[in-house]
């Protein structure tokens, strides 16, 4: 194993360009889990991002929120303006691991890792986040909603570094994030669902329900249509158009679909007239 420790973005992207197989590491809350057992990783080259001071911190720009790639969950929790403008970021951050994870885990790492269970990604996607990818070739900005193409596969090419995440400063009406885990704290989601009512209509994003974090367009269409929804069960088929949850160590596909339907039904009935 070897570690490269750049101090500037230029150095970092140069390294990734020269060694695209190298693995960027920031908070380590995914890569370091069970580290002593992950012998295959011990053969790799890592690019330590922790010294890239330019990627630290968050700022407001033209009403948008721009999070440098080293922004942690805890950084976001300390920012009161985020709590007002993008409350689901707070709600999700509080439920990611516990403080020891929140102080280390980064939003960009969550995006880059591409886990289908990532709570942070679901709310970022609901808020239509844009992912800034930097390489020696230049800067690409990709909508997070189009970022994933398969299980842990994304549009990021190996020479690209996620350098920022930008959330457009849109006003939202209803904003809901529900996480269902096996316990009240420090749980990996069995089901996550972020729902916001944007000026253009409902946006619903689900995590742990498919190989990728998934925008649920069929569900959104139903919500936007104003057609009556009589029961949670009436949503099952719609949900299954959007996601395909599986049985795994943490839950069952059946539970996931049924509970997602029940969350949508019970949470939205007070917000949408169509619910009976």
């Amino acid at each position: 194993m070897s570690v490269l420790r750049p101090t500037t973005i230029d150095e970092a992207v140069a390294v990734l360009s020269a060694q695209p197989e190298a693995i960027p590491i920031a908070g380590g809350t995914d890569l370091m889990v069970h580290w002593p057992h992950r012998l295959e990783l011990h053969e790799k080259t890592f690019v330590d991002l922790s010294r890239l001071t330019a990627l630290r911190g968050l700022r407001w720009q033209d009403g948008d929120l721009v999070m440098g790639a080293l922004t942690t969950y805890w950084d976001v929790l300390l920012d009161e303006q985020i709590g007002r403008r993008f409350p689901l970021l707070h709600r999700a951050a509080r439920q990611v691991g516990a403080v020891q994870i929140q102080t280390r885990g980064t939003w960009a790492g969550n995006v880059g890792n591409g886990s289908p269970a990532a709570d942070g990604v679901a709310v970022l996607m609901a808020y239509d986040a844009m992912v800034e990818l930097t390489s020696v070739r230049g800067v690409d900005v990709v909508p997070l909603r189009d970022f994933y193409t398969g299980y842990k596969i994304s549009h990021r090419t190996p020479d690209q570094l996620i350098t920022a995440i930008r959330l457009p400063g849109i006003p939202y009406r209803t904003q809901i994030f529900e996480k269902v885990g096996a316990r009240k704290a420090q749980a990996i989601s069995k089901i996550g669902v972020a729902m916001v009512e944007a000026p253009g209509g409902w946006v619903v994003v689900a995590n742990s329900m498919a190989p990728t974090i998934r925008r649920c367009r069929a569900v959104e269409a139903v919500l936007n249509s104003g057609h009556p929804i009589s029961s949670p069960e009436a949503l099952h088929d719609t949900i299954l158009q959007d996601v395909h949850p599986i049985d795994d160590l943490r839950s069952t596909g059946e539970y996931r679909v049924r509970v997602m339907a029940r969350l949508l039904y019970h949470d939205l009935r007070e917000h949408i007239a169509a619910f009976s």
Partner: protein
Amino acid sequence: MTPPTSDVALGFLLNGSSVSVTCAPEDRLLDLLRGPLRLPGTKEGCGEGECGACTVLLNGLPVNSCLVPSYQADGATVETIEALADERHAALLEGGATQCGACTPGVAMTAEWIRRHPALGKRFPLSELMAGNLCRCTGYDGILKSLEAALTDDEGTA
């Protein structure tokens, strides 16, 4: 082909003193503390960032040292359980916060962080702030009540 393992030289502020060490890049901060730095007060409970027994303060924030690559401690401030004076433990001792003791140093470090930032305890429930420290003995009441008592004491003496 295995790339050659290159050792990493690090310097950081550990419990108020500067230390310089050379370690393998595979070493976690936890390995460094318990091994060459001989600070076994920090415990390994799971190695997966779940139990919090290895909690230390890194640049003033609680982290699981099993998830911190050693090279990221370079230039940082690290505080371990060994840094705390005995008087600091009075409330937790009296309130029954420790039983078997394996989770205890981690519990004490998270509690210490909360005590240094008492506003946190007003913004978040203590049970949420402590949720990263699994304890199998106390049922948490002894921990949470002791921490409440410590915060009240701190307020009185502040």
